């Protein structure tokens, strides 16, 4: 004979007896012992985001200064030539920006970055 599923009420006296035979076990400090044995929570990184940004910016500035020192700083006599080069470079860089595709891609990058850091930006503004 197939045993009936236990979720259905039964009139069988044996099954009724088995169902009645439930006595809960008192906690007696068991839960406290479990909580005391749980692994320690992971420590959060000490460096705050602001400090990280400062450290990165400082590193970038030092790197830039170091690079300029290695390549030789522009002298006053070279200043006109340097400005002219800078002008040419700026023009060359600005030309592709007139292309709508590049503008669209730029907008996409900016919106993606904004989406990724929206929470951080909102937290900063609030």
């Amino acid at each position, binding site marked *: 004979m197939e045993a009936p599923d*236990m979720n259905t009420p039964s009139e069988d006296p*044996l099954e009724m007896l088995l169902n009645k035979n*439930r006595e809960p076990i008192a906690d007696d400090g*068991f839960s406290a012992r479990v909580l005391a044995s*749980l692994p320690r929570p992971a420590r959060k990184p000490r460096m705050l985001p602001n400090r990280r940004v400062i450290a990165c910016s400082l590193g970038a500035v030092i790197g830039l200064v170091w690079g300029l020192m290695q390549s030789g700083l522009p002298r006053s006599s070279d200043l006109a030539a340097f400005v002219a080069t800078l002008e040419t470079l700026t023009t060359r860089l600005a030309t592709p920006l007139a292309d709508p595709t590049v503008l669209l891609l730029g907008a996409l990058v900016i919106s993606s970055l904004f989406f990724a850091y929206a929470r951080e930006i909102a937290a900063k503004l609030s």
Partner: protein
Amino acid sequence: MSPSDFELITRVVTEDDRAAFGELVRKHQSAVRAFLRQLTRGDAAWADDLAQESFILAYRKLRDFRGEAAFSSWLLGIAHNQFRNARRRQREIPHEIVPETSGDNEPSHADKTALHQDLSAAMARLSADEQTALHVCYQQGLSHGEAAEVLGWPIGTVKTHLARSKEKLRELLAAWKPLT
């Protein structure tokens, strides 16, 4: 109103809320410890050690809980695995001495306490798997499907063990008038 298991689990997973996990332990400790006491054949100290390990493992794996089964069933599954691993390590289960019942199964008391005592004695004469099947389905109140999942047995095996164990209990308790 106490928060549901789902709410407590969410708090543990998202905020590492240990108080919420403590609440889960308090809610389910009795079922898990009773189940393990059944598996260890009444060795309360060993059962409690296994229960503690089971809850710690559950805490670590809580992110993997998908909510497809009831949390209590998921916990019992972990407890059963802990027991099997421990038994594999120990290679043998410490067996409790089975209490001898009077040869002719005559009831010595007519009250309910005596009936429960005789029921316990009769259950001790069942095989370990039969006792486990009875415990999971009656004391824990799981369905056959849930019991099969927790124990890792085919559902047919659960049903067979239940049918056999009840048949044996009926024979052992036959002298009790209300059961005949």
